[in-house]
């Protein structure tokens, strides 16, 4: 009998945490990832880390992408990483937005799987997500 398993597209939850109201970048990334063949579960603005984790569980997502443009990336990334660990969600966190050079290493040490700054190409975004998911598998 032939195997009828369909290849499962990667699923990523995209959100912005807290009060940062600029979602244009996140919408552009959502479109890039869709065009790269991913299923994007778009949560949009003003999410809490708990809401993101709940969505990851219900959607059986493979990764989380959060976008930050307000300088809160260190604190919010740490909160998100803590929430992922606490829930044993086992998914990589990808951070997009404005991250000063000096903070890149801090985010990496924290456990952020990839950082996508302004000007990241569509290919960069898709490749980063795929690599981050593959690294955890």
């Amino acid at each position, binding site marked *: 009998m032939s195997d009828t398993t369909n290849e499962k597209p990667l699923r990523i939850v995209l959100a912005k945490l807290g009060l940062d109201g600029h979602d244009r970048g996140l919408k552009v990334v959502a479109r890039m990832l869709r065009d790269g*063949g991913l299923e994007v579960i778009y949560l949009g603005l003003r999410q809490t880390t708990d809401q993101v984790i709940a969505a990851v569980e219900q959607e059986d997502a493979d990764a989380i992408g959060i976008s930050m443009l307000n300088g809160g990336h260190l604190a919010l990334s740490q909160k998100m990483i803590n929430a992922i660990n606490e829930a044993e969600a086992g998914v990589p966190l990808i951070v997009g937005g404005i991250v000063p050079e000096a903070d890149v290493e801090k985010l990496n040490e924290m456990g952020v799987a990839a950082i996508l700054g302004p000007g990241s190409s569509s290919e960069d975004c898709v490749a980063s997500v795929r690599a981050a998911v593959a690294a955890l598998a």
Partner: protein
Amino acid sequence: MNQPTSGLRGLPVSDIFTRACDGDRRAIGRVLSIAERGGTDSIELGELAHKLTGNAHVVGITGAPGAGKSTLTGRLAATLAASGRRVAVLAIDPSSPVTGGAILGDRIRMDEHNYGTGTFIRSMATRGQGGGLAVAVPAAIRILDAVGFEIVIVETVGVGQIEIDIAGTADTTAIVVTPGWGDAVQANKAGLLELADVFVVNKADRPGASDSRRDLELMLDLSDTSEWRPDIVLTVGTEGDGVDDLITELARHRQHLADAGQLEARRRRRAQHELRVRAGDALANRLKDALNSAEGQSIITAMASGGASPASSLDRLLDELYPN
């Protein structure tokens, strides 16, 4: 297994399913993925799940893009959850036919009122249309039913035959329209009418709501409604107005199905449809294998060279497909 999260990594399907039945939401999320993906694991899962099904009220919500289905579905789910019902939502959005990717944005409209209520929301992409959805959606519904959700709401964009088919797999189907959506002629054209068990005029705070209601009433007057006449409910999804009326109407329809012995008939029709799609898939696979086999290739060669007629070649192929 594809990308297991750490807590479920390496567990057999039956264990994950047991956890799902115990209410572990991550396990429910995972078994839905297994069902959606198809293959051997999904067959085992289907065996486990189907014994436990038949209790949920499956409600289809469909209508044109922008009619406010997600917002209304969110309110409906939240209101039901607040009254103590266990609710799951399956929100279906189209995949890009070119890249296979999808943006699933229904949660934005649903989370506000449902986060923390126990409502389980799952977004599902159509993944390549075809007959696949006709298998994946009923499989997902059965799982949500089996793990104990009392009401399963399936939300689809009512634009194509496949979406209409999906809506038609529900016990009760609500068609959502908006004021200014068009007259009764448009409604007939859309082919959604025969499907409706309940009509919803959403965004009813806008001008034209009573015109839409009148048009629908007129159209219903021209239809055979001897068994069931769909009620027309006016709602404002953003405010939650009319949602209680909708819940009453959905329950009334479910009761009607039970009283009229229709629940059984609908489930039978659903089973027949799903079986036909599954059989079609299975037979197509067998045919492909047979054509690719050595015997298949020799039948093709004999026919192509002009030595064997199409009819005799078919007989040989059928012998190959159904030996003895």
